[in-house]
């Protein structure tokens, strides 16, 4: 098991919005200039954005770090990726370059890549594509040269372009639930092709981000092959830094018992095969 990077405490600050652009009919990316915070960030972590000074909605909105921005190897900011679905993300969509956005971050843990990993498969369901680019760039920087991104979206409106989903140098496989973009199918169908083709095997690094149903299907799919994966989870959060206890997930413990763990501070990344989802045997 590789050592996880040492994580620094979060900051609460304002960053300057540099971009806030549409990349799919319902999806946007926001680029934020915040060198002090960016210097602390690692792939897989998240930030918690205040979307309204008038506190409507009341709570911040947690967003994966979509990409870390570096200028001449110095961290200067970050991107987040979001679907415009409710009052918080509608507020975000109205923000303009030059304005400030208040955020807390970095939060949560970072990816843990075994040093021996030579190949990686990143599995994204829907807006779970958010952290993929940062993770892929991190892997490439570590010398993992063979990186495949499997990306499944609902339909055309929710499907982002390949160049937004992953950096150059990755193989990207795409599907949509309704076939409106690329092939019709589920993201686990893409993973199945890799497994059958011998392009995913034990020892490869697997990272997944998406809904519970995707996590369950992927876990059940990988288990017979003995392939481990990291799951970047998302739950509704009150605070994002471990004080409200509002974002529990169920995790199988080494002794076989099942305990609640907090998505925000115990994760948001967990070993996929330790998570217990609704419908799983107790």
């Amino acid at each position, binding site marked *: 098991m590789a050592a996880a990077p040492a994580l620094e*405490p*979060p*900051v*609460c600050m304002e960053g300057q919005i540099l971009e806030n652009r549409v990349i799919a009919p319902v999806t946007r990316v926001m680029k934020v200039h915040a060198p002090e915070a960016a210097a602390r960030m690692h792939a897989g972590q998240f930030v918690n954005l*205040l979307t309204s000074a008038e*506190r*409507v*909605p*009341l*709570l*911040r909105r947690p967003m994966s770090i979509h990409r870390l921005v570096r200028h001449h190897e110095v961290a200067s900011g970050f991107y987040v990726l979001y679907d415009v679905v409710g009052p918080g993300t509608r507020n975000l969509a109205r923000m303009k370059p030059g304005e400030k956005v208040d955020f*807390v971050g970095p939060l949560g843990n970072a990816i843990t890549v075994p040093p021996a990993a030579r190949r990686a498969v990143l599995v994204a369901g829907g807006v779970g594509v958010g952290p993929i680019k940062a993770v892929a760039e991190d892997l490439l920087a570590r010398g993992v040269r063979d990186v495949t991104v499997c990306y499944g979206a609902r339909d055309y409106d929710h499907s982002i372009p390949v160049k937004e989903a992953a950096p150059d140098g990755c193989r990207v496989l795409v599907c949509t639930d309704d076939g409106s973009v690329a092939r019709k199918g589920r993201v686990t169908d893409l993973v199945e092709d890799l497994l059958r083709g011998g392009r995913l095997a034990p020892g490869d690094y697997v990272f997944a981000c998406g809904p519970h149903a995707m996590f369950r299907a992927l876990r059940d799919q990988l288990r017979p092959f003995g392939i481990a994966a990291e799951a970047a989870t998302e*739950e*509704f*959060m*009150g*605070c994002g*830094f*471990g*004080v*409200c*206890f*509002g*974002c*529990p*997930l169920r995790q199988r413990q080494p002794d076989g018992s099942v*305990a*609640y763990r907090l998505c925000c501070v115990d994760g948001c990344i967990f070993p996929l095969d330790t998570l217990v989802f609704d419908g799983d045997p107790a």
Partner: protein
Amino acid sequence: MSGGPTGPGAPAGAPGAGPAGGGALDLSLTVGALRLPNPVGTASGTFGKGLEFQPFYDTARLGFVVVKTITTEPRAGNPPPRLVETPGGLLNSIGLANPGVEAYLAEVLPRLRTLGAPLVLNIAGHSVADFEALARRVAREAGIDALELNMSCPNVARGLDYSTDPATAREVLRRVRGATDLPLIAKLSPNVTDIRPIAEAVAEGGADAVSAINTLVGLAIDWRRRRPVLGRGVGGLSGPCIKPVALRLVRQVHRAVGLPVIGIGGIETADDAMEFFLAGASAIQVGTANYYRPRACLEVLEGLPERFAALGARSLADVVGTLEDPPGA
């Protein structure tokens, strides 16, 4: 009752309400034998295990810290979803998730002692005897400045009973009072027809202060699924939307009992805190705002001098309970 600065609920024993005739602002107060340097603290359940806020500000500047409720036995907490956002508020059903008193005292308390602010442990018993035993157990530890009794958590079985019936409330305080010399703060529920008899009962039982209010019991519904949104059904409502309810109840409690009142309910700014002081609170706790504005407590504290000056006030005694009734009321 007068409710004025020298009346019931004035900062009890506050050292002379500041230097007579001028000088610096004095925001200190006393609760029982405990002197608090200022009236801004954290509400239980919103401050985690205490260290989570250290990246955001120096917690030693707080008037006091109230930490998440401790129970005798470990509690895993309620099934998710535990939170739902409502207009201006947050409905929660956390279920007093905590590692139990022994693990807490061994693993968490040593870290809390490093916070630098007066430390208030919040305890909840599952019976009157359990309240007493829990108080006796934690009181043996050093570094605890006061106890707040969670008599009104809406998210556990029987959780509301201790502050909905005056006789039971009195008995809880009497038994805990017999178990420890620590200052006792009784946290009251708003989910009652009349809060005053409960406040009077805890005062008779030996409370040194009353904190009000805990969350309001509420229900969020997903009509498409014909189910409550929260995993356990009902939850406790907090946030700015409950502030008017809290202000009214703080005023009622302040007028009813001669104890310091610690106001809680939707406080996120110094202006909110001033409203509570005028209503009769001698101190306040910031709760839900800690989630979305991690520096909220500090911002409230730093905003007080300017607002005290606007009223010509030099101490809490100059503002606490000084709300005037409208003409003809």
